């Protein structure tokens, strides 16, 4: 455990970043669109995608669980992006109802990301022993 593993750094970085970005998008009044920027949602989706891909191919029980949480987060975020896109380009505008549903969907994704980070911490603690 003396040398730093660059793979672990990148891995941890993206998992934590997806949580922090997710949190950044989520905070603010639930139905006020000025509190939730679309660029932030884009960033959350990209970083989450990268985190998901990074978890591919790990055959351990922990790896499988982490992949599952990431897939859940992706599902929620893609749903949020779809709701936003349909609302912005369809006939209805960004009403408070739409914004509320987008933000609550991203809130669900954040929960999955929290679990991901907790799992990462558990794994690290167990490796220390």
């Amino acid at each position, binding site marked *: 455990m003396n040398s730093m593993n660059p793979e672990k750094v990148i891995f941890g970085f993206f998992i934590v970043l997806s949580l922090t970005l997710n949190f950044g998008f989520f905070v603010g009044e639930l139905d006020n669109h000025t509190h939730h920027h*679309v*660029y932030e949602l*884009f960033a959350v989706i*990209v970083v989450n*995608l*990268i985190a998901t*891909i*990074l978890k*591919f*191919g790990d*055959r351990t029980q922990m790896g499988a669980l982490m992949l599952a949480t990431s897939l859940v987060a992706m599902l929620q975020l893609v749903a949020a*992006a779809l709701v936003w*896109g349909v609302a*912005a*380009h369809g006939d209805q505008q960004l009403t408070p109802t739409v914004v509320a549903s987008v933000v609550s969907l991203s809130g669900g994704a954040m929960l999955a990301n929290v679990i991901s980070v907790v799992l990462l911490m558990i794994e690290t603690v167990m490796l220390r022993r």
Partner: protein
Amino acid sequence: MESIFFLIMRRMRAPLLALILAHSVAVLGLVLIPGVDDQGNPWRMGFFHAFYFVSYMATTIGFGEIPYAFTDAQRTWVMVTIYLTVIVWLYSIGTLIALLQDRALRRAFVENQFVRQVERMGEPFYLICGYGETGRALVATLVEGGGHAVVVDASPDRLDELKMEVIREQVPALLGESRNPENLQKAGLLNPMCRGVVALTPDNDANLKIAISAKLLRGDIKVICRADSKEVEANMASFGTDHIIDPFDTFALHLATAFQSPCLFLLRSWLTGKIGVDEEPVCMPGKGKWILCGYGRFGKAVYHRLKDEELETVVIEATPEKTGRPPDGILVTGWGTDEATLRAAGAEEAVGLVAGTDNDVNNLSIAMTAREINPDLFVVLRQNRQDNRVIVDAFGADIVMHASTIVADKIRILLATPMLVEFFGLGLFQEDQWSCTLFSRIAGLLENREPPEVWELVVNDERASAVTESIRRGHAVKLGHILTNPREREESLAAIVLLMIRHNGDRMLLPEREIFLEPGDQLLFCGSRLARSRMRWTLRNEHSLRYVRQGYSPRRGRVWKFLRGER
């Protein structure tokens, strides 16, 4: 399956990451760069349109500048992203295609398919390790008889041969060393439907290891091994290998049977389904000089058999310094393919010749030259390779012996009706006349020249519940009873008992009909297919048994008793 899934995921990680990064950079750039709409008003592309544009640009579909014509700033950015995304896209697709063509992955796919195929086997099958000449003959004869086989072999060429083989059903085959116990497991050793393992690789050690693995992992199944050295045979026997087959001994015994008892030889070929009923027994020449070409392992085994028959034998061998010399008897050095050697060995006055080298062309050449010198010569021709059958048949030898087929037939009998092997062993001690009588007796039983059916029976609760129940109640059952037609007790079934092994281990050849059956007796029958199915009634149905024993079956139902006035 999951290993393949994880392998693909792991290998696709880098291309997918590159793809996501390139796409997100391209989308973000398009969203940030200001543009104008068709009216000239300032306009910014949303994520929706940006993602749409990048998706068709990266895949080189290219629908054009949608929804409004781009500004120069946007076009500059698009130029950068075209090169970026198209390259990354091609890289990802290229990796995926390379992955699907990967040898390891394709092998994993094939192996996976094989394992599922074996798991789905719903009928008893035999695991055959080694698909050489013998393995090939065995698989063909097993499948022909309606059985099933699974093959393991390390050579891809031989497995290709199996795929090309025209046989009734597709035989699952695993490419891999059969000495590896993991491969045996994959091939269904632990499958409850697996009834036996046959180790036929040319390597004694590999066969030994297969036998040990099979006996350790599945003690309850039959293990048959090929071995050509006495030490390995002893080793295999020590841990309970069921049957050990020395191909050279088996072959020589086969030849000896032809010498000692031509009728038994004929009976054997007939009962094992090799020939029809019309064949005449081979007429062996009387006493006289025999010439044996080739003194390798095969030649030595034959030599000892000829000596046992007290026949004068001359050996022709090209390299006696390698093979050694016969302990007594004459040796002529040479190939035997030329006239001079054959004349030196005395082909003019000899009665028989065994062309027994391991080369089919040489054997044919020896036999043809010898026939020219002495047209009355009795020729035994050893055939080594199955694909030479056409030319070997064209020669018309008195006896053709294809070692692989002989061994394969023996194994098939050992797997299906092991008592038949014992029967032939005991039959060898009888006079030839005994076999001839038996032959005509069986031929007389069968109508329409149908091939004889051979089957075994153990008198136990599972196979003959009515018989054991009757014995338990104190009503003895004779052998003649179960050989009676359960529909008409005046008639006998078209079947005879060849061999009976009593519960105490006594062996009886052609037992009398008056013998009383005991639980644990084993019987070997030969007869017609119809007789076999009729006999099942007597064995399992107590009414049928009562009928053949006493001539009536009691009315058991209340209604019948009432109608009959019985109360």
